[in-house]
Protein backbone atom coordinates (compact mmCIF):
# COMPACT_ATOMS: atom_id res chain seq x y z
CA UNK A 1 0.00 0.00 0.00
CA UNK A 2 3.02 2.26 0.09
CA UNK A 3 2.67 2.82 -3.60
CA UNK A 4 -0.80 4.16 -3.06
CA UNK A 5 0.34 6.69 -0.50
CA UNK A 6 2.69 8.24 -3.02
CA UNK A 7 0.13 8.12 -5.74
CA UNK A 8 -2.45 9.95 -3.71
CA UNK A 9 -0.20 12.93 -3.46
CA UNK A 10 0.10 12.97 -7.17
CA UNK A 11 -3.48 12.70 -8.17
CA UNK A 12 -5.24 14.66 -5.46
CA UNK A 13 -4.04 18.08 -6.28
CA UNK A 14 -5.12 21.44 -5.11
CA UNK A 15 -5.87 23.81 -7.91
CA UNK A 16 -3.05 26.35 -8.14
CA UNK A 17 -3.57 29.77 -6.72
CA UNK A 18 -4.67 32.25 -9.29
CA UNK A 19 -5.00 35.97 -9.04
CA UNK A 20 -8.74 35.61 -8.75
CA UNK A 21 -8.51 33.47 -5.64
CA UNK A 22 -10.26 35.16 -2.78
CA UNK A 23 -8.53 35.59 0.53
CA UNK A 24 -10.80 35.18 3.51
CA UNK A 25 -9.85 37.47 6.32
CA UNK A 26 -8.38 35.38 9.04
CA UNK A 27 -9.40 37.15 12.21
CA UNK A 28 -13.06 37.50 11.36
CA UNK A 29 -14.99 34.75 13.01
CA UNK A 30 -17.97 33.67 11.02
CA UNK A 31 -20.26 30.71 10.84
CA UNK A 32 -20.57 28.63 7.73
CA UNK A 33 -23.91 28.56 6.04
CA UNK A 34 -25.30 25.66 4.08
CA UNK A 35 -26.83 26.96 0.89
CA UNK A 36 -28.88 24.76 -1.36
CA UNK A 37 -28.44 25.73 -4.97
CA UNK A 38 -31.13 23.97 -6.89
CA UNK A 39 -32.81 21.67 -7.81
CA UNK A 40 -34.83 24.62 -9.05
CA UNK A 41 -32.34 27.34 -9.70
CA UNK A 42 -31.84 29.40 -12.86
CA UNK A 43 -28.18 28.59 -13.30
CA UNK A 44 -28.06 24.88 -12.59
CA UNK A 45 -29.38 24.22 -16.11
CA UNK A 46 -32.00 21.76 -15.01
CA UNK A 47 -32.47 19.85 -11.84
CA UNK A 48 -29.05 19.68 -10.31
CA UNK A 49 -28.66 20.43 -6.64
CA UNK A 50 -25.46 21.81 -5.25
CA UNK A 51 -25.12 21.80 -1.52
CA UNK A 52 -22.75 24.67 -0.92
CA UNK A 53 -21.00 25.30 2.34
CA UNK A 54 -20.48 29.02 2.24
CA UNK A 55 -18.55 31.54 4.26
CA UNK A 56 -20.18 34.77 3.25
CA UNK A 57 -19.95 34.84 -0.52
CA UNK A 58 -17.13 32.32 -0.61
CA UNK A 59 -18.03 28.73 -1.35
CA UNK A 60 -15.94 26.42 0.79
CA UNK A 61 -17.30 23.26 -0.73
CA UNK A 62 -20.02 22.41 -3.19
CA UNK A 63 -21.32 18.89 -3.29
CA UNK A 64 -23.46 18.01 -6.31
CA UNK A 65 -26.53 15.85 -5.82
CA UNK A 66 -27.87 14.18 -8.92
CA UNK A 67 -30.66 11.90 -9.90
CA UNK A 68 -33.61 14.26 -10.08
CA UNK A 69 -33.96 13.43 -13.76
CA UNK A 70 -33.01 9.76 -13.54
CA UNK A 71 -35.15 7.86 -16.01
CA UNK A 72 -33.54 4.40 -15.75
CA UNK A 73 -32.11 4.45 -19.27
CA UNK A 74 -29.94 1.43 -18.62
CA UNK A 75 -32.80 -0.63 -17.22
CA UNK A 76 -35.04 0.37 -20.11
CA UNK A 77 -32.32 -0.56 -22.56
CA UNK A 78 -32.30 -4.10 -21.20
CA UNK A 79 -36.04 -4.35 -21.72
CA UNK A 80 -36.40 -3.28 -25.36
CA UNK A 81 -34.75 -4.39 -28.57
CA UNK A 82 -31.92 -2.47 -30.17
CA UNK A 83 -33.92 -0.19 -32.50
CA UNK A 84 -36.18 0.53 -29.56
CA UNK A 85 -33.29 1.93 -27.56
CA UNK A 86 -32.63 4.72 -30.05
CA UNK A 87 -35.53 6.93 -28.85
CA UNK A 88 -34.33 6.51 -25.29
CA UNK A 89 -30.86 7.54 -26.38
CA UNK A 90 -32.41 10.64 -27.96
CA UNK A 91 -33.69 11.70 -24.59
CA UNK A 92 -30.37 11.53 -22.81
CA UNK A 93 -28.68 14.63 -24.10
CA UNK A 94 -31.78 16.25 -25.46
CA UNK A 95 -29.86 19.16 -26.94
CA UNK A 96 -27.79 16.91 -29.19
CA UNK A 97 -30.00 13.96 -30.01
CA UNK A 98 -28.42 13.35 -33.39
CA UNK A 99 -25.01 12.97 -31.85
CA UNK A 100 -26.38 10.57 -29.25
CA UNK A 101 -28.00 8.43 -31.92
CA UNK A 102 -24.80 8.51 -33.90
CA UNK A 103 -22.73 7.25 -30.96
CA UNK A 104 -25.19 4.50 -30.13
CA UNK A 105 -25.63 3.33 -33.69
CA UNK A 106 -21.93 3.07 -34.48
CA UNK A 107 -21.49 1.10 -31.26
CA UNK A 108 -24.13 -1.46 -32.16
CA UNK A 109 -22.89 -1.58 -35.76
CA UNK A 110 -19.52 -2.76 -34.48
CA UNK A 111 -21.19 -5.98 -33.36
CA UNK A 112 -23.30 -6.27 -36.52
CA UNK A 113 -22.07 -7.12 -39.96
CA UNK A 114 -23.54 -4.26 -41.89
CA UNK A 115 -22.12 -2.18 -44.68
CA UNK A 116 -23.25 1.39 -44.23
CA UNK A 117 -23.90 3.13 -47.56
CA UNK A 118 -21.53 5.97 -48.18
CA UNK A 119 -24.32 8.49 -48.62
CA UNK A 120 -25.74 7.53 -45.26
CA UNK A 121 -22.40 8.24 -43.63
CA UNK A 122 -22.38 11.73 -45.10
CA UNK A 123 -25.96 12.34 -44.07
CA UNK A 124 -25.18 11.26 -40.56
CA UNK A 125 -22.21 13.58 -40.31
CA UNK A 126 -24.18 16.51 -41.72
CA UNK A 127 -27.06 16.19 -39.27
CA UNK A 128 -24.71 15.51 -36.37
CA UNK A 129 -22.67 18.59 -37.11
CA UNK A 130 -25.76 20.76 -37.52
CA UNK A 131 -26.89 19.51 -34.16
CA UNK A 132 -23.45 20.16 -32.70
CA UNK A 133 -23.69 23.82 -33.69
CA UNK A 134 -27.20 24.01 -32.26
CA UNK A 135 -26.00 22.48 -29.02
CA UNK A 136 -23.00 24.79 -28.76
CA UNK A 137 -25.29 27.75 -29.36
CA UNK A 138 -27.39 26.74 -26.39
CA UNK A 139 -24.24 26.27 -24.34
CA UNK A 140 -22.92 29.70 -25.26
CA UNK A 141 -26.29 31.39 -24.88
CA UNK A 142 -27.03 29.96 -21.48
CA UNK A 143 -23.50 30.73 -20.39
CA UNK A 144 -24.14 34.35 -21.32
CA UNK A 145 -27.32 34.30 -19.24
CA UNK A 146 -25.41 32.86 -16.32
CA UNK A 147 -23.12 35.84 -16.50
CA UNK A 148 -26.02 38.26 -16.79
CA UNK A 149 -26.02 39.03 -20.51
CA UNK A 150 -29.45 38.30 -21.84
CA UNK A 151 -29.22 39.41 -25.43
CA UNK A 152 -26.61 36.91 -26.71
CA UNK A 153 -28.90 34.15 -25.49
CA UNK A 154 -31.71 35.30 -27.72
CA UNK A 155 -29.36 35.79 -30.64
CA UNK A 156 -28.23 32.19 -30.15
CA UNK A 157 -31.78 30.94 -30.04
CA UNK A 158 -32.73 32.91 -33.12
CA UNK A 159 -30.00 31.16 -35.10
CA UNK A 160 -30.64 27.79 -33.50
CA UNK A 161 -34.18 28.04 -34.80
CA UNK A 162 -32.90 27.79 -38.37
CA UNK A 163 -31.05 24.60 -37.52
CA UNK A 164 -34.02 23.08 -35.77
CA UNK A 165 -36.11 23.89 -38.84
CA UNK A 166 -33.59 22.13 -41.04
CA UNK A 167 -33.56 19.06 -38.85
CA UNK A 168 -37.32 19.11 -38.51
CA UNK A 169 -37.62 19.22 -42.27
CA UNK A 170 -35.55 16.13 -42.75
CA UNK A 171 -36.50 14.09 -39.69
CA UNK A 172 -39.95 15.29 -38.74
CA UNK A 173 -39.06 16.23 -35.18
CA UNK A 174 -37.58 19.31 -33.64
CA UNK A 175 -35.57 17.96 -30.76
CA UNK A 176 -35.82 14.19 -30.35
CA UNK A 177 -35.24 12.95 -33.83
CA UNK A 178 -34.96 9.15 -33.85
CA UNK A 179 -33.38 9.78 -37.24
CA UNK A 180 -30.10 7.90 -37.27
CA UNK A 181 -30.98 4.22 -37.11
CA UNK A 182 -28.82 1.18 -36.62
CA UNK A 183 -27.54 0.37 -40.10
CA UNK A 184 -29.03 3.37 -41.81
CA UNK A 185 -31.01 6.50 -41.47
CA UNK A 186 -34.75 7.07 -41.28
CA UNK A 187 -35.43 9.21 -44.35
CA UNK A 188 -33.47 10.51 -47.27
CA UNK A 189 -32.88 14.26 -47.33
CA UNK A 190 -35.84 16.13 -48.82
CA UNK A 191 -35.42 17.86 -52.15
CA UNK A 192 -33.60 21.16 -51.77
CA UNK A 193 -32.10 20.28 -48.40
CA UNK A 194 -28.60 20.61 -49.72
CA UNK A 195 -29.21 24.06 -51.04
CA UNK A 196 -30.97 25.26 -47.94
CA UNK A 197 -28.20 23.94 -45.72
CA UNK A 198 -25.63 25.70 -47.87
CA UNK A 199 -27.65 28.89 -47.54
CA UNK A 200 -27.80 28.45 -43.82
CA UNK A 201 -24.02 28.04 -43.59
CA UNK A 202 -23.61 31.22 -45.56
CA UNK A 203 -26.08 33.01 -43.29
CA UNK A 204 -24.60 31.73 -40.07
CA UNK A 205 -20.94 32.60 -40.58
CA UNK A 206 -21.36 36.37 -40.05
CA UNK A 207 -23.83 35.74 -37.24
CA UNK A 208 -21.29 33.64 -35.39
CA UNK A 209 -18.80 36.46 -35.78
CA UNK A 210 -21.34 38.94 -34.45
CA UNK A 211 -21.88 36.73 -31.43
CA UNK A 212 -18.16 36.71 -30.75
CA UNK A 213 -18.06 40.49 -30.94
CA UNK A 214 -20.99 40.84 -28.61
CA UNK A 215 -19.91 38.30 -26.04
CA UNK A 216 -16.39 36.96 -26.26
CA UNK A 217 -14.76 40.32 -26.83
CA UNK A 218 -16.73 41.94 -24.05
CA UNK A 219 -14.47 43.23 -21.30
CA UNK A 220 -16.80 42.22 -18.50
CA UNK A 221 -17.31 38.75 -19.95
CA UNK A 222 -13.55 38.23 -20.12
CA UNK A 223 -13.19 39.51 -16.58
CA UNK A 224 -15.79 37.06 -15.33
CA UNK A 225 -14.31 34.03 -17.07
CA UNK A 226 -10.57 34.50 -17.45
CA UNK A 227 -8.63 32.65 -14.79
CA UNK A 228 -11.82 31.30 -13.20
CA UNK A 229 -12.20 27.56 -12.67
CA UNK A 230 -8.67 26.62 -13.68
CA UNK A 231 -8.16 22.97 -14.50
CA UNK A 232 -4.66 21.75 -15.39
CA UNK A 233 -4.46 19.27 -18.22
CA UNK A 234 -3.22 16.27 -16.21
CA UNK A 235 -5.92 16.65 -13.57
CA UNK A 236 -8.52 17.05 -16.29
CA UNK A 237 -7.42 13.77 -17.87
CA UNK A 238 -7.45 12.10 -14.47
CA UNK A 239 -11.00 13.25 -13.97
CA UNK A 240 -11.88 11.77 -17.32
CA UNK A 241 -12.86 15.02 -18.92
CA UNK A 242 -13.45 14.97 -22.63
CA UNK A 243 -14.68 17.14 -25.43
CA UNK A 244 -14.51 20.93 -25.21
CA UNK A 245 -13.73 20.70 -21.51
CA UNK A 246 -10.55 18.71 -22.10
CA UNK A 247 -9.55 20.79 -25.10
CA UNK A 248 -10.10 23.87 -22.97
CA UNK A 249 -7.38 22.54 -20.70
CA UNK A 250 -5.05 22.47 -23.67
CA UNK A 251 -5.19 18.77 -24.58
CA UNK A 252 -5.35 18.19 -28.31
CA UNK A 253 -7.89 15.40 -28.24
CA UNK A 254 -10.90 14.95 -30.44
CA UNK A 255 -12.47 11.56 -30.98
CA UNK A 256 -13.39 12.53 -34.51
CA UNK A 257 -9.65 12.56 -35.19
CA UNK A 258 -8.47 9.93 -32.70
CA UNK A 259 -11.05 7.25 -33.36
CA UNK A 260 -11.57 8.29 -36.98
CA UNK A 261 -15.06 6.87 -37.14
CA UNK A 262 -17.50 7.31 -40.00
CA UNK A 263 -16.12 9.55 -42.74
CA UNK A 264 -14.35 12.01 -40.47
CA UNK A 265 -10.86 10.93 -41.60
CA UNK A 266 -11.73 12.09 -45.12
CA UNK A 267 -12.71 15.54 -43.96
CA UNK A 268 -10.42 18.44 -43.39
CA UNK A 269 -10.99 20.11 -40.06
CA UNK A 270 -8.83 21.05 -37.15
CA UNK A 271 -9.10 20.28 -33.47
CA UNK A 272 -9.83 23.48 -31.60
CA UNK A 273 -7.45 24.09 -28.73
CA UNK A 274 -7.03 27.55 -27.25
CA UNK A 275 -3.56 28.95 -27.78
CA UNK A 276 -3.39 30.91 -24.55
CA UNK A 277 -3.16 34.33 -26.15
CA UNK A 278 -6.64 35.32 -25.18
CA UNK A 279 -7.30 33.11 -22.18
CA UNK A 280 -5.41 31.22 -19.51
CA UNK A 281 -5.32 27.61 -20.63
CA UNK A 282 -7.78 25.61 -18.57
CA UNK A 283 -10.11 28.37 -17.43
CA UNK A 284 -13.77 28.97 -18.18
CA UNK A 285 -12.92 31.34 -21.02
CA UNK A 286 -10.86 28.66 -22.78
CA UNK A 287 -13.76 26.26 -22.64
CA UNK A 288 -16.05 28.91 -24.04
CA UNK A 289 -13.56 29.70 -26.81
CA UNK A 290 -13.30 26.04 -27.78
CA UNK A 291 -17.07 25.91 -28.27
CA UNK A 292 -17.05 29.10 -30.26
CA UNK A 293 -14.25 27.86 -32.52
CA UNK A 294 -15.86 24.46 -32.93
CA UNK A 295 -18.93 26.03 -34.45
CA UNK A 296 -16.73 27.38 -37.22
CA UNK A 297 -15.15 23.98 -37.75
CA UNK A 298 -18.55 22.33 -37.86
CA UNK A 299 -19.59 24.76 -40.56
CA UNK A 300 -16.50 23.75 -42.54
CA UNK A 301 -17.35 20.09 -42.09
CA UNK A 302 -20.92 20.64 -43.27
CA UNK A 303 -19.71 22.48 -46.36
CA UNK A 304 -17.27 19.74 -47.25
CA UNK A 305 -19.87 17.03 -46.69
CA UNK A 306 -22.41 18.81 -48.88
CA UNK A 307 -19.83 18.93 -51.62
CA UNK A 308 -18.60 15.35 -51.28
CA UNK A 309 -21.93 13.64 -50.62
CA UNK A 310 -22.79 11.25 -53.46
CA UNK A 311 -26.12 11.99 -55.12
CA UNK A 312 -28.37 9.04 -55.80
CA UNK A 313 -31.86 9.20 -57.18
CA UNK A 314 -34.40 7.10 -55.37
CA UNK A 315 -31.91 6.37 -52.64
CA UNK A 316 -33.22 4.05 -49.93
CA UNK A 317 -31.47 4.97 -46.69
CA UNK A 318 -32.95 1.96 -44.95
CA UNK A 319 -31.62 -0.58 -47.42
CA UNK A 320 -28.76 -1.72 -45.24
CA UNK A 321 -30.80 -2.12 -42.08
CA UNK A 322 -31.00 -5.80 -41.17
CA UNK A 323 -34.48 -7.29 -40.81
CA UNK A 324 -33.77 -8.41 -37.30
CA UNK A 325 -31.07 -6.69 -35.38
CA UNK A 326 -29.35 -9.38 -33.41
CA UNK A 327 -25.70 -8.57 -32.81
CA UNK A 328 -23.24 -11.38 -32.37
CA UNK A 329 -22.17 -12.35 -28.91
CA UNK A 330 -19.58 -10.16 -27.35
CA UNK A 331 -18.88 -6.95 -25.61
CA UNK A 332 -18.11 -3.64 -27.13
CA UNK A 333 -17.32 -0.16 -25.99
CA UNK A 334 -18.10 2.37 -28.68
CA UNK A 335 -17.92 6.09 -28.46
CA UNK A 336 -18.28 9.25 -30.45
CA UNK A 337 -17.54 12.90 -30.00
CA UNK A 338 -20.62 14.56 -28.60
CA UNK A 339 -20.84 18.34 -28.25
CA UNK A 340 -20.20 17.79 -24.56
CA UNK A 341 -17.46 15.23 -24.84
CA UNK A 342 -17.05 11.52 -25.18
CA UNK A 343 -20.37 9.74 -25.23
CA UNK A 344 -19.67 6.04 -24.88
CA UNK A 345 -21.81 2.94 -24.81
CA UNK A 346 -20.74 -0.33 -23.28
CA UNK A 347 -22.93 -3.04 -24.77
CA UNK A 348 -22.97 -6.69 -23.86
CA UNK A 349 -24.75 -9.03 -26.22
CA UNK A 350 -25.31 -12.75 -25.80
CA UNK A 351 -25.82 -13.32 -29.53
CA UNK A 352 -29.21 -14.95 -29.07
CA UNK A 353 -31.52 -12.19 -27.99
CA UNK A 354 -32.52 -8.98 -29.72
CA UNK A 355 -32.04 -7.14 -26.47
CA UNK A 356 -28.71 -6.24 -24.93
CA UNK A 357 -27.67 -7.96 -21.73
CA UNK A 358 -26.19 -4.73 -20.52
CA UNK A 359 -26.13 -1.29 -22.01
CA UNK A 360 -24.18 1.28 -20.08
CA UNK A 361 -24.05 4.86 -21.21
CA UNK A 362 -20.86 6.70 -20.40
CA UNK A 363 -22.17 10.21 -20.17
CA UNK A 364 -19.80 13.04 -20.83
CA UNK A 365 -21.57 15.54 -18.59
CA UNK A 366 -21.68 13.08 -15.73
CA UNK A 367 -17.91 12.74 -15.85
CA UNK A 368 -17.28 16.43 -16.45
CA UNK A 369 -19.50 17.37 -13.56
CA UNK A 370 -17.65 15.10 -11.16
CA UNK A 371 -14.84 17.65 -10.97
CA UNK A 372 -17.28 20.22 -9.61
CA UNK A 373 -16.29 19.62 -6.02
CA UNK A 374 -12.66 20.41 -6.69
CA UNK A 375 -13.38 23.30 -9.02
CA UNK A 376 -15.76 24.99 -6.63
CA UNK A 377 -13.41 25.03 -3.68
CA UNK A 378 -12.82 28.59 -2.49
CA UNK A 379 -14.72 30.28 -5.29
CA UNK A 380 -17.23 33.07 -4.97
CA UNK A 381 -20.86 32.27 -5.70
CA UNK A 382 -20.80 34.22 -9.00
CA UNK A 383 -17.73 32.23 -10.02
CA UNK A 384 -19.48 29.01 -9.09
CA UNK A 385 -22.25 29.98 -11.49
CA UNK A 386 -19.63 30.77 -14.10
CA UNK A 387 -17.99 27.37 -13.63
CA UNK A 388 -21.24 25.42 -13.82
CA UNK A 389 -22.08 27.29 -16.98
CA UNK A 390 -18.73 26.50 -18.55
CA UNK A 391 -19.14 22.78 -17.85
CA UNK A 392 -22.27 22.94 -19.98
CA UNK A 393 -24.23 20.20 -18.32
CA UNK A 394 -27.41 18.70 -19.65
CA UNK A 395 -29.09 17.00 -16.76
CA UNK A 396 -30.80 14.56 -19.03
CA UNK A 397 -27.43 13.11 -19.82
CA UNK A 398 -26.03 13.36 -16.32
CA UNK A 399 -28.89 11.45 -14.76
CA UNK A 400 -29.81 9.37 -17.78
Amino acid at each position, binding site marked *: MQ*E*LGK*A*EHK*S*VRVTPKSENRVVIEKDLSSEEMILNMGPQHPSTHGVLRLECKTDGEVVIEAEPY*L*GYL*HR*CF*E*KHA*EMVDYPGIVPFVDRMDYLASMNNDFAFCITVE*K*LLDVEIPRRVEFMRVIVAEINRIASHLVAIGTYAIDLGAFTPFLFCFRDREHMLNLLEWTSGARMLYNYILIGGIAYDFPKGFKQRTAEFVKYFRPKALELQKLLTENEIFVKRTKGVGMMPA*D*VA*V*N*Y*GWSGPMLRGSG*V*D*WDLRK*EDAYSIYPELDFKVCVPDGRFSNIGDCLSRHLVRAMEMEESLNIIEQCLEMMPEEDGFDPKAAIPKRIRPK*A*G*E*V*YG*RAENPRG*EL*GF*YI*QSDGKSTRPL*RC*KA*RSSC*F*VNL*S*AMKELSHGQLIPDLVSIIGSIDIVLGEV*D*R
Partner: protein
Amino acid sequence: MEEAQENTSQSPEVIEAKAVWDVLKEKFGDAISELDENPFMPFFEVLQPEHWLNIALFMRDNPELRFNYMACLSGVDYPEEGKLGIVCNLESLGELGHKIAIKVRCKRDSGVIPSVSRVWKTAEWHEREAFDMYGMSFSGHPDLRRILCPEDWEGYPLRKDYKVQETYHGIKVPN
Protein backbone atom coordinates in the same frame (compact mmCIF):
# COMPACT_ATOMS: atom_id res chain seq x y z
CA MET B 1 -17.73 -15.27 -21.56
CA GLU B 2 -16.87 -15.92 -25.09
CA GLU B 3 -13.55 -17.42 -25.97
CA ALA B 4 -10.95 -15.45 -27.82
CA GLN B 5 -11.66 -15.33 -31.47
CA GLU B 6 -9.03 -16.66 -33.75
CA ASN B 7 -8.19 -13.85 -36.00
CA THR B 8 -5.35 -14.30 -38.42
CA SER B 9 -5.04 -10.61 -39.21
CA GLN B 10 -5.38 -8.95 -35.86
CA SER B 11 -6.32 -5.32 -35.66
CA PRO B 12 -3.67 -2.92 -34.29
CA GLU B 13 -5.79 -2.38 -31.21
CA VAL B 14 -5.56 -6.02 -30.27
CA ILE B 15 -1.81 -6.09 -30.90
CA GLU B 16 -1.35 -3.08 -28.65
CA ALA B 17 -3.55 -4.59 -26.00
CA LYS B 18 -1.52 -7.79 -26.21
CA ALA B 19 1.69 -5.83 -25.56
CA VAL B 20 0.09 -4.17 -22.56
CA TRP B 21 -1.10 -7.47 -21.25
CA ASP B 22 2.38 -8.97 -21.61
CA VAL B 23 3.83 -6.27 -19.37
CA LEU B 24 1.14 -6.81 -16.78
CA LYS B 25 1.39 -10.60 -16.91
CA GLU B 26 5.11 -10.39 -16.21
CA LYS B 27 4.53 -8.20 -13.18
CA PHE B 28 1.42 -9.75 -11.68
CA GLY B 29 1.52 -13.33 -12.95
CA ASP B 30 -1.47 -15.33 -11.82
CA ALA B 31 -3.43 -12.35 -10.58
CA ILE B 32 -4.68 -11.68 -14.10
CA SER B 33 -6.28 -13.95 -16.64
CA GLU B 34 -5.45 -14.55 -20.27
CA LEU B 35 -6.24 -11.76 -22.70
CA ASP B 36 -9.50 -12.12 -24.58
CA GLU B 37 -8.37 -11.10 -28.03
CA ASN B 38 -11.68 -10.17 -29.55
CA PRO B 39 -11.49 -7.41 -32.15
CA PHE B 40 -14.09 -5.15 -30.50
CA MET B 41 -12.87 -4.80 -26.97
CA PRO B 42 -9.82 -6.83 -25.92
CA PHE B 43 -10.00 -7.42 -22.20
CA PHE B 44 -8.60 -9.47 -19.38
CA GLU B 45 -9.91 -10.23 -15.95
CA VAL B 46 -8.34 -9.56 -12.60
CA LEU B 47 -8.62 -12.99 -10.98
CA GLN B 48 -7.50 -11.84 -7.55
CA PRO B 49 -9.51 -8.65 -6.88
CA GLU B 50 -7.31 -7.70 -3.93
CA HIS B 51 -4.55 -6.89 -6.43
CA TRP B 52 -6.79 -4.65 -8.52
CA LEU B 53 -5.65 -1.43 -6.86
CA ASN B 54 -1.98 -2.23 -7.35
CA ILE B 55 -2.59 -3.24 -10.93
CA ALA B 56 -4.41 0.03 -11.50
CA LEU B 57 -1.60 2.07 -10.02
CA PHE B 58 0.97 0.14 -11.99
CA MET B 59 -1.00 0.69 -15.16
CA ARG B 60 -1.25 4.38 -14.57
CA ASP B 61 2.32 5.06 -13.56
CA ASN B 62 4.40 2.53 -15.49
CA PRO B 63 6.16 4.39 -18.31
CA GLU B 64 5.39 1.55 -20.73
CA LEU B 65 1.66 1.63 -19.96
CA ARG B 66 0.66 5.15 -18.89
CA PHE B 67 -3.06 4.48 -18.72
CA ASN B 68 -3.94 7.97 -17.57
CA TYR B 69 -7.55 7.98 -18.72
CA MET B 70 -10.46 5.86 -17.58
CA ALA B 71 -13.10 6.16 -20.24
CA CYS B 72 -15.79 4.14 -18.56
CA LEU B 73 -16.50 1.93 -15.58
CA SER B 74 -19.62 -0.18 -15.91
CA GLY B 75 -21.16 -2.45 -13.35
CA VAL B 76 -22.28 -5.83 -14.65
CA ASP B 77 -24.41 -8.59 -13.17
CA TYR B 78 -23.60 -12.26 -13.79
CA PRO B 79 -26.55 -14.06 -12.21
CA GLU B 80 -25.59 -17.54 -13.47
CA GLU B 81 -22.22 -17.39 -11.79
CA GLY B 82 -23.54 -15.61 -8.72
CA LYS B 83 -21.23 -12.71 -9.26
CA LEU B 84 -21.19 -9.01 -9.82
CA GLY B 85 -18.46 -7.23 -11.67
CA ILE B 86 -17.13 -4.08 -13.16
CA VAL B 87 -15.73 -3.46 -16.61
CA CYS B 88 -13.19 -0.67 -16.93
CA ASN B 89 -12.22 0.81 -20.28
CA LEU B 90 -8.79 2.35 -19.98
CA GLU B 91 -6.80 4.37 -22.40
CA SER B 92 -3.48 6.15 -22.54
CA LEU B 93 -4.81 9.50 -23.66
CA GLY B 94 -2.45 11.64 -25.62
CA GLU B 95 0.60 9.64 -24.59
CA LEU B 96 0.81 6.07 -25.89
CA GLY B 97 -2.66 5.77 -27.30
CA HIS B 98 -3.35 2.13 -26.47
CA LYS B 99 -6.58 0.86 -25.00
CA ILE B 100 -7.60 -2.12 -22.94
CA ALA B 101 -10.56 -3.25 -20.92
CA ILE B 102 -10.36 -4.90 -17.53
CA LYS B 103 -12.94 -6.90 -15.64
CA VAL B 104 -13.07 -7.39 -11.92
CA ARG B 105 -15.63 -9.59 -10.30
CA CYS B 106 -16.82 -10.18 -6.79
CA LYS B 107 -19.42 -12.24 -4.96
CA ARG B 108 -23.02 -11.32 -5.47
CA ASP B 109 -23.77 -11.07 -1.78
CA SER B 110 -21.75 -8.45 0.05
CA GLY B 111 -19.02 -8.53 -2.56
CA VAL B 112 -16.15 -6.11 -2.25
CA ILE B 113 -13.94 -4.68 -4.96
CA PRO B 114 -11.04 -2.35 -4.14
CA SER B 115 -11.83 1.19 -5.19
CA VAL B 116 -9.64 2.84 -7.79
CA SER B 117 -11.18 6.26 -7.30
CA ARG B 118 -7.88 7.55 -5.99
CA VAL B 119 -6.08 6.36 -9.10
CA TRP B 120 -8.54 7.75 -11.61
CA LYS B 121 -10.95 10.38 -10.32
CA THR B 122 -13.43 9.29 -12.98
CA ALA B 123 -13.95 6.14 -11.01
CA GLU B 124 -15.28 8.00 -8.00
CA TRP B 125 -18.70 8.71 -9.39
CA HIS B 126 -18.78 5.65 -11.60
CA GLU B 127 -18.14 3.41 -8.61
CA ARG B 128 -20.88 5.18 -6.75
CA GLU B 129 -23.14 4.50 -9.69
CA ALA B 130 -22.16 0.83 -9.80
CA PHE B 131 -22.82 0.58 -6.07
CA ASP B 132 -26.14 2.32 -6.54
CA MET B 133 -27.25 0.01 -9.34
CA TYR B 134 -25.68 -3.31 -8.34
CA GLY B 135 -24.85 -3.10 -4.68
CA MET B 136 -21.24 -4.24 -4.66
CA SER B 137 -19.08 -2.38 -2.20
CA PHE B 138 -15.87 -0.57 -3.06
CA SER B 139 -13.31 -0.69 -0.29
CA GLY B 140 -11.40 2.53 0.16
CA HIS B 141 -13.92 4.68 -1.66
CA PRO B 142 -14.02 8.13 -0.02
CA ASP B 143 -17.75 8.68 -0.28
CA LEU B 144 -19.70 5.58 -1.19
CA ARG B 145 -23.31 6.67 -1.34
CA ARG B 146 -26.11 6.20 -3.80
CA ILE B 147 -25.81 8.71 -6.60
CA LEU B 148 -28.80 8.46 -8.96
CA CYS B 149 -31.39 6.76 -6.79
CA PRO B 150 -32.64 8.31 -3.55
CA GLU B 151 -30.67 7.46 -0.41
CA ASP B 152 -33.44 5.30 1.01
CA TRP B 153 -34.27 3.33 -2.13
CA GLU B 154 -34.59 -0.38 -1.63
CA GLY B 155 -32.74 -2.87 -3.76
CA TYR B 156 -30.34 -2.49 -6.63
CA PRO B 157 -32.23 -1.70 -9.83
CA LEU B 158 -29.92 -3.11 -12.47
CA ARG B 159 -29.59 -6.57 -10.95
CA LYS B 160 -31.33 -9.07 -13.15
CA ASP B 161 -33.56 -10.30 -10.32
CA TYR B 162 -34.57 -6.83 -9.15
CA LYS B 163 -38.13 -6.37 -7.97
CA VAL B 164 -39.47 -2.87 -7.69
CA GLN B 165 -40.59 -1.92 -4.23
CA GLU B 166 -44.34 -1.49 -3.87
CA THR B 167 -44.42 1.96 -2.37
CA TYR B 168 -41.90 4.68 -1.73
CA HIS B 169 -42.82 7.05 1.10
CA GLY B 170 -46.44 6.13 0.62
CA ILE B 171 -46.35 6.73 -3.13
CA LYS B 172 -47.13 3.77 -5.32
CA VAL B 173 -44.16 2.89 -7.50
CA PRO B 174 -45.28 2.19 -11.07
CA ASN B 175 -44.07 -1.13 -12.34
